[in-house]
């Protein structure tokens, strides 16, 4: 099986951004598979778990999958925004399925990783719940939800996020901090209740 070629993914992304939901159906498994492949590569190459460069991972997956030059995006920022939405969909879907597997159990489940190794912060985040909270946040503050998508799901830096959203880094920092606080509070709500 050959690697899915960048232009295929790019075209699908483009179609999706134009409102073609079937494009997303095709897109998700390809990107998802690529992410898995990338994750596996990193695991093989860089044994210590903590050195896993997740941001780089995401970037690389995108660079491999998406031909950023080939598509007539309204602009580069549009492209990143679409990509971030896609990543959010994929990762949240994955988290939901993974939880389901955990709950249901399966003979395919396996623990290949050394449990003694430390897990990164954020591993505790319930992405499904976060996703829902983010939906609510978007109703209150569209820009803030975009910042979260870009920073958290797409792994962009503050500077990159500022560029994509065409705002100052200061604004990004401010929005990011507020969004984090708000989302943490939202996620804590269930426990506190």
């Amino acid at each position, binding site marked *: *099986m*050959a*690697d*899915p*070629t*960048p*232009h*295929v993914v790019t075209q699908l992304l483009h179609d999706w951004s134009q409102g073609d939901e079937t494009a997303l*159906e095709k897109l998700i*498994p*390809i990107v998802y*598979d690529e*992410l*898995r*492949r990338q*994750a*596996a590569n*990193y*695991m093989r190459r860089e044994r210590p*778990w903590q050195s896993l460069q*997740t*941001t780089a*991972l*995401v970037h690389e997956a995108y660079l491999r999958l998406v031909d950023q*030059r*080939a598509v007539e995006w309204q602009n580069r920022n549009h492209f990143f925004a679409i990509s971030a939405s896609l*990543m*959010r969909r994929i*990762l949240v879907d*994955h*988290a939901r399925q*993974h939880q389901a597997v955990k709950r249901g159990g*399966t*003979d*395919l489940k*396996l*623990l*290949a*990783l050394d449990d003694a190794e430390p*897990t*990164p*912060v*954020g*591993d505790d*985040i319930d*992405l499904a719940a976060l996703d829902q909270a983010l939906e609510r946040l978007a*109703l*209150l*503050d569209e820009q803030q939800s975009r910042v979260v998508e870009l920073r958290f*799901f797409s*792994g962009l830096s503050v500077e990159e996020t500022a560029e994509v959203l065409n705002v100052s880094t200061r604004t990004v920092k*401010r929005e990011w901090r*507020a969004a*984090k*606080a*708000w*989302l*943490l*509070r939202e996620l*804590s709500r269930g426990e506190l209740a």
Partner: protein
Amino acid sequence: MTPERWRQVKDLFASVVELTPSQRAAFLAQNCDDELRGEVEALIAADDLSHSFMETPAVAAVAKSLVSESLELSAGQFIGPYEIVKALRGGGMGEVYLARDPRLERFIVLKLLPAYFAKDEQFVRRFAQEARTASALNHPNICVIYEIGKTTDGRDFIAMEHIAGRTLREHIAQQLLLPAEALRVAAQIADALTAAHATGVVHRDIKPENVMLRADGYVKVLDFGLAKFQPRSEHESINEARTVLHLTEPGTAMGTVQYMSPEQLCGRSVDGRTDIWSLGVVLHEMVTGRTPFAAANKNESIALILDGGPIPFAWHVGVPPEFQQIVARAMSKPKEARYQTIAELAADLKQLQGLLGVKSGMVTEILSSSQGVRVDSDQATRLQRLTSPVRKHPIVLVSALAGLAIILAVLFFPRASSSPPFQAVSTAQLTNSGRAVSAAISPDGKFVAHAIVEKGLQVLLLTGLATNTTSILVPASEAEYLGITFSPDGNYLYVTRRNPGSDAGILYRVALPGGAPVKLKDGVDGPIAFSPQGERFSFVRFTRASGEYALMVSRADGSEDRTLATRNNGQRFSLYGSAWSPDGEKIVCAAGRWDKGYHMNLVEVRVADGQERTLGTRQWFSILQVGWLAEKGWLIISAREQWTSPYQLWGVSYPQGEVVRVSNDTFEHESVSVARDGKVIVSTQKQHVGRLWIAPDGDDRQAKMVASNVGRIYGLNWTRAGKLVFSSMAGNNLNISRFDPESGEQIQLTVNAGDNYNPAPSPDGEHIVFASNRTGSLNIWRMNAFDGSEPRQLTFSDGNSYPVYSKDGEWVAYDNQSAPTTTIWKVAIDGSAPLKIIDNGRMPVVSPDNQFIACRYRGEIAIVLVQGGEPVKRLPIPVMDWQQVQWTADGRALTYITTIDGTSNIWRYDLVTDSTKQLTAFSADNIFAYAWSTDYKQLACQRGTDVTDVIMIRDQP
């Protein structure tokens, strides 16, 4: 909360977090109401806890499970009945594992399809169906698919044969293959593809990654039919290719595109010929280490593959030209110009492999194994080259200008020939019987007449081209048609034929569209040619007694012969036909002579007084027929450049004698007939199909084929050691080879020394005598039988051939054809004392007691004493084209070939009782050459057929 409210909250929050905790309370008290303050404070509380929250991107949260999913299966787990041993390689078509089948105690390879495929039910269904088709393939060179199934969680898997070895990709990365090795691998791939194509399965993704090399030499092809389920091949179409054409992606995703055929890249439907292309690419890569279209990036590669230009092969030194030809043909851009079936390619691969296995540079007509009319890309290029200068021809340019310019052109270039005709053509095969002998087109281009052989008899047929209906003009008879000519008014067909029991040609006239043949004239030995008005015709008469060839003119009713020109003393006119000039004043005919070998050229003869002029300076080895394109000022001739090259069609400008090729293929085109408008040529195409057989004791039931394609053999003999020696085309010449019928090993004994043929070993097996034109003249030579070393010239005249050793090894008998009458000679083995044995003899063979010579003599076989003198016995054994009799061991009989109803067998003529007996009982094919082993226990013979059909070539200027 409303967005407005949230805006307030977050603005306050942003301000507050900048303050120290002690300042915050005061700030909030000052700026908010209670409810607002509650919101902000809650946020601040969360903020205190959220320093690390979400600071690691989301992917980290799932990376662990992502990774663990990609290592889904581990040793000991079961998928269906299979126990996972280890992962083999990631990526590709899902994951690949080495697994064990505990039931059969064997290892298998398990492929899990990528999970995302599972969501597309239609896809999965199609995939499963295709995999099932592929799993039905049963061939030693195809990786076996054992099972297609689903895991418990619904993922599709394929269980397949585990092949211990490495991929061709891995092998190439370490070490290039020698041409012979590459052929061995490619031949096995081709065998696998042959089996697959036979069941309708096209591989679509032949590349080194999909070929496994086993340690024991077996080659296995993987992933049959699965390629079309790869997104790449679905999307790698021309449209996508165009959109990415401006991109450069150094080093990325070069992958499969390198092996894709043009039609595959264009997203057009593909068939088995796409695999032929890909195998061509792999062949190139195996010996050179790179694919032929390797470029800086994928798009350049795609452009190279699609581009119509010549293939930019980069061959290493030492890759034989025949290898390159095979690859070039496999990779012809139009798929119609490639090998049409993988079996054809396989045959050529094996043939060359066999030859390279022994000695490189040894070539026979391996590339002529396939049939059909083709224009390969080289040829197309050649045609382009030939046609483009035409457009720049001064007269053409000038004539494009106004009238004055045309007048000037006529004034200054009155003799310039017009543009060469038939430089771009379309060719149609009119018959497919393979048994055509002669053909002609009517002047109006509406009818074609041709003769075919049916069960040894010849039938004359007439085909209406408009209706494509064929009728019998003259039913089957024993007559042999030598020439067919339509009268200029199209009312009659004039046929020259030889009747049974006669070697003289007779002219008949048949009224069209049908009527009994009416005898018109004796002594017409080839096709006639009509004057433009049709009131006269020309022909060539051969008088056997004097050896004279005469170009003659007669009235249309056959009366009033007149001799225009003659050839004597070994010089000849072609018996195959002349042509009249459009003004009726000249006749062009081919004439030949011995002059450092045999040569023919065109001669124009003035009808009024027989004055001759040589047309042009070009010579050929042989010219057969001539046709005149009246309006164009060009002649079309069928001619071969050397004895060994096929008869091809050429254009010759009149009167300049400028020469262009019209055909350029491996067929023999022996006849020329043109329609009046000069736009159509009807000719024949002949291909020789011959195989070498060994029959113990001459028993045809035990006959075994030992070589399938050695081309036309010129001289076949056994050595004392049970090897065969023969001459066949190798490179551009006839060369002598020694062939071991046991092992199939073939060793070329002559190289780069002209044409060499008629090899005959000495009684002690140490030497071989043969005929060679290496000095320019045709003479008898001797060389060491083991390695062809120490060549020594025995005769020093010209036209000497068919040498045989005396049984004591002291002298050599041979014949000479350069004089008006053929003669048989003998010469001492040191080249001294040449002595003429008999006139009118040809092809001598020495009796076992060394006392007699049997030879062809005046249309039959004669036996003469080795000292010479008149024949002591004459035998009514028919003399056919390649008839050379042989003695039996006891010297009491001769064996010879008899062909009945198109099937040849070997017969025995008892010299004591004058009785004949059939020795072999082959039921098909001709015998072109045969030889008894020195102990007379083995019969070697080359059997086969000439496949001849009528073709029509249309000028497409």
